[in-house]
């Protein structure tokens, strides 16, 4: 066993030192009825070579994004991550470290988290950010619960129709056993402004927060200013959700537009698609709300010699200190994913991020132009970042399958997310990033035009 340093000689010597006859002696507290004598019915140990082979077999049964023209987004985005990022996060001192509870020998982790918090706060346009949560969807749920704590007595969170459907589902689950009431407005991809109007109309005196995603699940960009105003006028908070953080290189930040809590999925920067996880929850808010935040926070301080250093702080919010009175039960965060984010963001810098965002946006405008001329295809977005929705003259799911056969992964049919809503069956959501070439766009539009020519 390559990971187990003992051989039988070692084991015998240790048992003998302990004074145990056999290893079974040490398991004597286990009730006899629960002791397994035989091996479980699972394969025996394998060499590294065999394990490698087995996983290459799994991998071969998937179609990696790089092999196709690739337009799948909808909450997870394929960007080019510099090789430097993955190299650095694999350094053993980062990879195999624990949560930095011993700051004297964890300044590496603590300092990058402090850099991360600053980057996130600045990017989202907020005063403070935490050291990450699991992902965007759970961060959104935590934001709703936090808004509930801040607006004591108010019990209703209103979710805009353009919020990613998984985020809405998660919010419902996370509030299910509390006294929070979650109202989900219906999605209306053909009427982005109507979505906002209905949201504003729904705010009442019992509203703790409204939750708005921008760009939303269908790619529409929203001006959060009017919503913030409306919410604040009624004493409610605005929770803004961003699932594509690269957009913030080009688009005004939610904080600047008046959001009180901003949550985001940070996967786009530094992290791979990974079939959905691990991802990176970003969470930022106003300074005055900091003691109501969930999750870990790193703060600056000094050591015994007066040297600057960093520590985990304000942990009286957290479960390991406050137990049932904690702001959240969260313990583990997304440490390594936040390191990847921080390194990639450091490589980009402000100028690089702006340019990257514009490249993404440019490709989306080209995609829109390419799709607009196709019969039976109507692009729904007038303002967008790197993702657009189209309404087809037929159900989208079979079209996506047909395009997959032509080496094009054409995006997400809305029916994948809302299987029960017939009004969305013809909607297809397509994303473009800097990894999508003009050739990819041409391939898609040609193939789609071809398919759409067929009779319904």
């Amino acid at each position, binding site marked *: 066993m390559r990971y187990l340093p003992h051989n039988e000689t070692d084991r015998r010597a240790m048992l003998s030192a302990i004074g145990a006859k056999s290893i079974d002696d040490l398991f004597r507290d286990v009730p006899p009825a629960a002791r397994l004598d035989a091996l479980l*019915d699972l394969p025996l140990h394998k060499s590294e070579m065999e394990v490698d082979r087995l996983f290459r077999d799994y991998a071969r049964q998937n*179609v990696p994004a790089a092999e196709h023209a690739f337009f799948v987004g909808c909450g997870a985005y394929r960007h080019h991550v510099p090789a430097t990022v993955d190299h650095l996060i694999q350094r053993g001192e980062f990879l195999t470290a624990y949560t930095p509870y011993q700051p004297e020998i964890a300044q590496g982790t603590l300092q990058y988290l402090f850099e991360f918090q600053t980057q996130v*706060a600045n990017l989202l346009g907020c*005063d403070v950010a935490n050291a990450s949560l699991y992902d965007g969807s759970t961060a959104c749920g935590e934001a709703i619960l936090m808004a509930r704590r801040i607006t004591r007595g108010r019990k209703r969170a209103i979710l805009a129709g353009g919020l990613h459907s998984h985020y809405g589902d998660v919010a419902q689950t996370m509030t299910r056993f509390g006294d929070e009431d979650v109202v989900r407005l219906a999605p209306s991809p053909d009427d982005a402004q109507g979505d906002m109007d209905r949201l504003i109309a729904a705010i009442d005196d019992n509203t703790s927060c409204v939750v708005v995603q921008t760009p939303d699940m269908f790619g529409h960009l929203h001006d959060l200013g009017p919503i913030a105003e409306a919410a604040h006028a009624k004493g409610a908070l605005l929770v803004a959700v961003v699932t594509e953080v690269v957009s913030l290189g080009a688009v005004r930040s939610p904080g600047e537009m008046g959001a009180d809590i901003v949550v985001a999925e940070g996967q786009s920067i530094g992290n791979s698609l*990974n*079939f959905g996880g*691990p991802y990176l929850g970003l969470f930022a808010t106003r300074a005055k709300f900091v003691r109501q935040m969930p999750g870990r926070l790193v703060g600056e301080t000094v050591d015994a010699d007066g040297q600057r250093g960093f520590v985990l702080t304000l942990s009286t919010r957290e479960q390991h200190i406050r137990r049932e009175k904690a702001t959240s039960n969260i313990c583990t965060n997304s440490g390594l994913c936040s390191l990847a984010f921080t390194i990639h963001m450091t490589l980009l810098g*402000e*100028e690089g991020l702006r340019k990257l965002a514009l490249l993404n946006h*440019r490709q989306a405008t080209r995609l829109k132009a390419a799709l607009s001329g196709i019969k039976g295809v109507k692009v729904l977005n007038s303002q967008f970042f790197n993702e657009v929705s189209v309404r087809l003259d037929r159900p989208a799911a079979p079209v996506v399958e047909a395009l997959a056969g032509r080496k094009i992964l054409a995006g997400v049919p809305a029916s994948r997310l809302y299987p029960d809503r017939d009004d969305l069956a013809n909607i297809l959501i397509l994303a473009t990033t800097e990894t999508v070439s003009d050739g990819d766009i041409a391939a898609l539009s040609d193939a789609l035009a071809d398919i759409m020519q067929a009779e319904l």
Partner: protein
Amino acid sequence: LVEPLIFEIGDARHSGVDLEDVGDFDHALGGLEREDRMGLPGLSEPETVRHYTRLSQKNYGIDSGFFPLGSCTMKHNPRINEKVARLPGLADIHPLQPESTVQGALAVMRDLAHWLTTLTGMPSVALSPKAGAHGELCGIMAIRSALEARGDARKVILVPESAHGTNPATAAFCGYQVKAIPANDDGRVDLAALKAALGPDVAGIMLTNPNTCGLFERDIIEIADAVHEAGGFFYCDGANFNAIVGRVRPGDLGIDAMHINLHKTFSTPHGGGGPGSGPVVFSKALAPYAPIPFVEEGEEGLFLREHKAAEGDKSFGRLVAFHGQMGMYVRALAYMMSHGADGLRQVAEDAVLNANYLLHELASDMTPSFEGPCMHEALFDDRFLKDTGVSTLDFAKAMIDEGYHPMTMYFPLVVHGAMLIEPTETESKDTLDQFIASMRALAKAARADETDRFTGAPYFAPLKRLDETRAARQPILKWTAPQSQEAAE
């Protein structure tokens, strides 16, 4: 050597990436263009590499040395797992690609589920929870859902005093009152007190086994029976599954739900605080309430059940966007396959052997809190430091100077000045022997009044003790430019 912050060495006009020129084009941002200065400094690639390399050198990981952090299971992280997790066919796939294009990914999830249910002897597993605490949430939600389904509005969850903080926090998150159960003199749940606490208002119990004192709960089957008899459910915190994997199946102990920290038992890297992954196994009674999604086998291959069926579906819903921590599934499954049924059993045996070896060898110089045998970790308290002027904290910081990461301190709360030492199965006898010698020498030094060696420790670390009070009182949570500099800009 002090390493500055990126904000002090970079600026907005430098960048470490090259991108194609954007050129002019008509924006479609609806007038929402970002115009503020973001305060995001850039560094060239060489500067970036050096900055983060130097930061890493201020960290201690498993790769750096022995990391006997009780309750955290800091074991070796194999690099083959990192390698296979990065295969483009596993890392470069999107969660919403057509299922026909991700059959291999779904097979990984199916096979991981098979290993986990077989190892635990439980019929079902929900893979999606993102970490241990998230798994607890998943388990307690399933319990509450099951109770609600039978119209039973119980209000209380019992939690032993020795529990992880996540346990009461989770119960409270799900709207339960938390009632603490005391420990007996053996460091285990006081069975009589437990039975007395049970009643029609008790939804269930959250118990860690082996418990946080490193002991197997001898009465666990009786506990399970009593809870079930009282109409409650038995949630087990599986953080310590490493101690029993392959030798004991939680399913045989009467457990209804248990999360498994893939980063503990199955060696996915801790990464300085995550990402984790916390699948939850369920008994037959709770399985119908488990969250979506699930991988199922259909006529055209594997597919994902991502939505609740319209009618009669008892699942409590979705815990997270997409399908959970695929990257961690791959690593954990690679680890399981590497060990196999035989190797995983050996994992538990060696983990327990190592802990008992430490417990035995250190018993004369330190004060074990309970009689052995322990399971995978050895608990000491601060009686051996009595009247030395050295606290548990001081003792732990002095370990840093010996080249070790400190053990877990002041946890569990049930003993005074706790020191919880978990060696794991991946440490060699040589390493343990050196550690024993160091600890004995430290204990002797404490008793010999070499107080400075402790109260000033660590001496050989990048920083000395940090002022945590100051950090909390005047929180500085992000970098801001010095006034003078800002004014000049």
